[in-house]
């Protein structure tokens, strides 16, 4: 049967038979890099179009419908426009940092792709501290935003960057604590083992209410971490023109834009892996027949289906809720999300020790 893992295995064995071990590694790294970059491009195109369509339908509009059949090439046309635009560097800006910031944003997004299991046995890097790696690297996102805001030499950019800093530092906590809930239940930091632990049911069903609370907190926290509405204080176009990327144009702006959407994809992929079993098909306990039927759907479809469901959820939030003020934002985190998630973690630990989950 054709699947991602068989394709990657056959390429690997062919390379090993043809080249020496060192060259095999170099070529495989190149292939992986190209795959990640093309996945970025495709994700950018699809997610931008998806967001525009979702937002249009939620606001009783039509959305893009002119370029190509049903407006499918709209984001492609936009990309071409951004590619040929002039990338301006303002006079008063810190040129080195200004140009480094968008590249850093995209590098962080690329690094986060490494531990994600896209399908059964199909993963760039199966490391034993996957969850820790993800939460550590994702907090580097704020550095590129702060760098962009500072180097722009623009009051709006700096304010946006500062807000974003306060926001990401605080929401990292509740995101981490809600991730810990799943780590406590599955007893592993390895994303692959976490997926394997959900072979008899996803954690959101097995862990019942505490895990559902953790999932809600996780979704709120990652929406804040990716700087999307209702937590888009970093760009807040009605107050700060465009926040940290006010001064960016052309491809440098496009990189920030792409990084935002790729980050949304990554946090949704992580959420799907932790709470919805990643590529694991929908299994119910010991119903062998039912589980076997579910196994016929390829694992990559399960993974992308779940991820896009979560992406839709985040888009749904974006186009429903108004933006929070900075004090409301910090109140929500420190007075509500953090205490709840700490208590929740305690509860889940007790449940895990007593074995009260399915």
């Amino acid at each position, binding site marked *: 049967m054709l699947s991602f893992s068989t394709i990657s295995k056959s390429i690997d064995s062919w390379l090993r038979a043809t080249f020496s071990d060192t060259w095999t590694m170099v070529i495989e790294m190149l292939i992986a890099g190209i795959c990640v970059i093309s996945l970025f491009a495709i994700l950018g195109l699809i997610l931008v179009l998806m967001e525009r369509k979702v937002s249009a*339908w*939620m606001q009783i509009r039509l959305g893009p419908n002119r370029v190509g059949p049903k407006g499918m090439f709209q984001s492609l046309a936009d990309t071409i426009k951004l590619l040929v635009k002039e990338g301006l560097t303002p006079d008063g800006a810190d040129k080195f940092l200004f140009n480094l910031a968008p590249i850093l944003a995209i590098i962080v997004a690329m690094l986060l792709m490494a531990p994600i299991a896209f399908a059964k046995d199909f993963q760039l890097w199966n490391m034993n501290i996957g969850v820790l790696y993800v939460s550590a690297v994702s907090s580097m996102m704020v550095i590129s935003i702060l760098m962009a805001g500072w180097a722009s030499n623009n009051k709006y950019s700096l304010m946006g960057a500062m807000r974003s800093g306060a926001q990401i530092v605080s929401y990292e906590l509740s995101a981490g604590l809600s991730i810990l809930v799943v780590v406590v239940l599955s007893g592993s930091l390895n994303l692959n083992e976490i997926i394997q632990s959900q072979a008899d049911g996803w954690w959101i069903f097995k862990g019942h209410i505490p895990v559902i609370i953790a999932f809600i907190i996780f979704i709120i926290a990652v929406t804040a971490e990716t700087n999307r509405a209702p937590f888009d204080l970093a760009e807040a176009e009605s107050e700060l023109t465009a926040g940290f990327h006010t001064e960016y144009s052309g491809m440098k702006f496009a990189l920030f834009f792409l990084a935002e959407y790729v980050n949304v994809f990554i946090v949704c992929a992580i959420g799907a892996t932790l709470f919805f079993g990643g590529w694991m098909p929908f299994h119910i306990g010991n119903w062998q027949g039912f589980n076997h039927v579910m196994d016929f759907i390829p694992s990559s479809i399960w993974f992308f289906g779940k991820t896009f469901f979560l992406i839709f959820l985040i888009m749904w939030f974006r186009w*429903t809720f108004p933006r929070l003020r900075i*004090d409301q934002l910090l109140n*929500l985190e420190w*007075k509500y999300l953090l205490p709840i998630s700490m208590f929740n973690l305690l509860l889940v630990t007790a449940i895990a020790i007593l074995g009260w989950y399915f």
Partner: protein
Amino acid sequence: MSNNSNYKDSSKASPSGGGLEGASSYLKDIFNGLKSLVIGLRRTFYYFTHHKEIITQQYPDNRETMNLPERFKGEVVMLHDENNEHACTGCTACELACPNATIKIITKFDITPEGKKKKAIDKFVYHLELCTMCNLCIVACPTDAIKMAQTFEHSVFNRADLTKVLNKPGSKIREGVE
């Protein structure tokens, strides 16, 4: 959770302090916040799944089948019946009502069959370029002689073309309208 109640509570919560009461209001806050968020989510999801609610008009393509709302106001027109008669008495109520001098009524005196002089309009001058479509002239008109039309493609090459005479040439006031 993300609505205004958060902010208000931050000032309210301090005097009442902790205790059981504080905890119950804290939980109630979370519950009410979540409930209001779900209401909003349900509304947008309804629109997301019900595409027949879409109000976008694909304007240049649907010129024939365009569906303008009833209250859409395009320009002032004077109503004429089949005998080329209108209902304007030249009372200038519309001219006085207009906030930015869009309407100028030039009157003349007709001689009635009995030999009396009667005031009538010579020209109802309407400056479309000054009009803000506020509808005050329509409200002011005692005889419903003018109304708002729904035409809106007003662009012309010459500004003078926007100054219009609304009464048709040769038209006269309808019998019985005072």
